[in-house]
């Protein structure tokens, strides 16, 4: 296992003909796309469109029925990939180990792989927690944290790895607007600092259009469009436009409008 270094470059990702079914229901229907090294690629789509399942395939947590995911040209299913490239995933729920403290969770990768002495790990843990605005929470248990704080600890845990590929599953869900901005800035900062490749699954249009170099919109296991944020915004596909323009009209405004009508 290679220790994290600050000059590590991101890795490219190729998805080739990815198919996946659960209990006879096809969730991914032959996805094909490339993500360039060092790029921020955002995947958007309605709930149940297969985004999280796709993300799990990209880090080897699910085996495809057909097709493959290539990391820097090497199949994710080959056993040496996980040891060769540093990858991290920020889960929607945080997925912190509930029996460990916040500090132990954040430093878990370094301590389990024995990459540094304990004092150095403690310093890095404190530094990463400060980055996500949770300075001094090392000794807290995950059940003492709010949903948003758990998400930020999970991001700190991913940052510790200094990954070449980082996958975010709904990174701003459950976060207040200020924390969401912090997370978005951290996604951009990480890309600038270590040229990490980032794949972000999100419903958050502000986040998606704010950070993406390129983006894809998927629906019912198929890609509707891929391109730069501008290209996607201009795509005439009614499903894409419906998803991008969906807006909640404030009930008071609506009532006012009805009254005038």
């Amino acid at each position, binding site marked *: *296992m290679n220790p994290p270094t600050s000059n590590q470059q991101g890795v490219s990702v190729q998805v080739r003909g990815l198919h996946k079914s659960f209990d006879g229901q096809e969730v991914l229907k032959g996805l094909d796309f490339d993500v360039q090294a060092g790029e921020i690629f955002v995947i958007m789509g309605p709930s149940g469109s297969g985004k999280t399942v796709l993300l*799990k395939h990209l*880090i*080897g*947590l699910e085996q495809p029925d057909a097709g493959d995911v290539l990391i820097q040209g090497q199949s994710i299913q080959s056993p040496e990939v*996980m*040891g060769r490239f540093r*990858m*991290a*995933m920020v*889960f929607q*729920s945080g*997925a*912190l*180990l*509930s*029996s460990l403290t916040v500090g132990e969770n954040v430093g*878990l*990768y370094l301590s*389990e*792989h*024995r990459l540094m002495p304990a004092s150095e790990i403690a310093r890095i843990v404190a530094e990463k927690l400060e980055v996500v605005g949770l300075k001094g929470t090392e000794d807290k248990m995950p059940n003492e944290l709010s949903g948003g704080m758990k998400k930020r600890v*999970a991001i700190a845990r991913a940052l510790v*790895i200094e990954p070449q590929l980082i996958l975010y599953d709904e990174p701003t869900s459950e976060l207040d607007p200020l924390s969401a901005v912090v997370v978005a800035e951290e996604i951009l900062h990480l890309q600038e600092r270590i040229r990490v490749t980032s794949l972000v699954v999100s419903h958050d249009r502000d986040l998606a259009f704010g950070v993406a170099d390129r983006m894809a919109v998927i629906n019912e296991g198929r890609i509707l469009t891929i391109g730069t944020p501008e290209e996607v915004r201009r795509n005439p596909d009614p499903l894409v436009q419906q998803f991008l323009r969906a807006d909640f009209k404030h009930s008071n405004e609506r009532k006012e409008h009805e009254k005038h009508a």
Partner: protein
Amino acid sequence: MFQNVGEMLVLFFRTLAALPLAWRQRQKVADQFFEIGNASLLMVCILSFFIGSVIALQTGPLLVEHGLASYVGGVVGYSICRELAPVMMAILIAGRIGSSMAAEIGSMRVYQEIDALRTMNINPIHYLVLPRLIALSAALPLLVIFAILVGWLGGAFVCVANTRIEISFAAFLSALRDVVEISDVANGVFKSFVFAVIIGVVSCHQGLITRGGPRGIGRSVTKAVVNSIVLIVIFDYLLTRALQK
């Protein structure tokens, strides 16, 4: 069922293959070991004392009646160390520790903590199963040795106190020494080691294959305990047959 057996065998052999990494996990092994001891020592003490007492109470008056008072210590000592202590303690540990292992690992599976480990290239077998299996395999035989001693004490107490038996403590001990050999104790301890491996593998396997929410965790816990007990009883017969004098 056969798929489960196959998966448990794979889990067992993968854990065996990871044994050289055990030293790296020593802190977790120690934590698990003390947790098992803390959670079960008092229960083991109570259970084994009363098992010894009941065996003495059941067999003592009958043997005394037939003029075989000098055999009471031997019968109580022999049955406790070869059969009752290992089997009863294994069943107790399956219920007390196996269930908590299945629940803990099952909840980690359901709440994606195991997925998180895998994304950090941390093998869940090395991190979760190996320390638990080693700790249980060390703790259960020690608990059984303790249970044998307490069980003998319980038997001796009844023999001394019960007016229908009335055997002195020294006579009980002397009869026990005449019948029970060190190999009998070793036999019980060996059985308990096998039972510990069964409980560990079954419980960790059930935890790792947990699906669904809290109901799934509950199902895994029940299966872990029931399957462990069934396998303990089957292996008890096989081991008794294999280790017969």
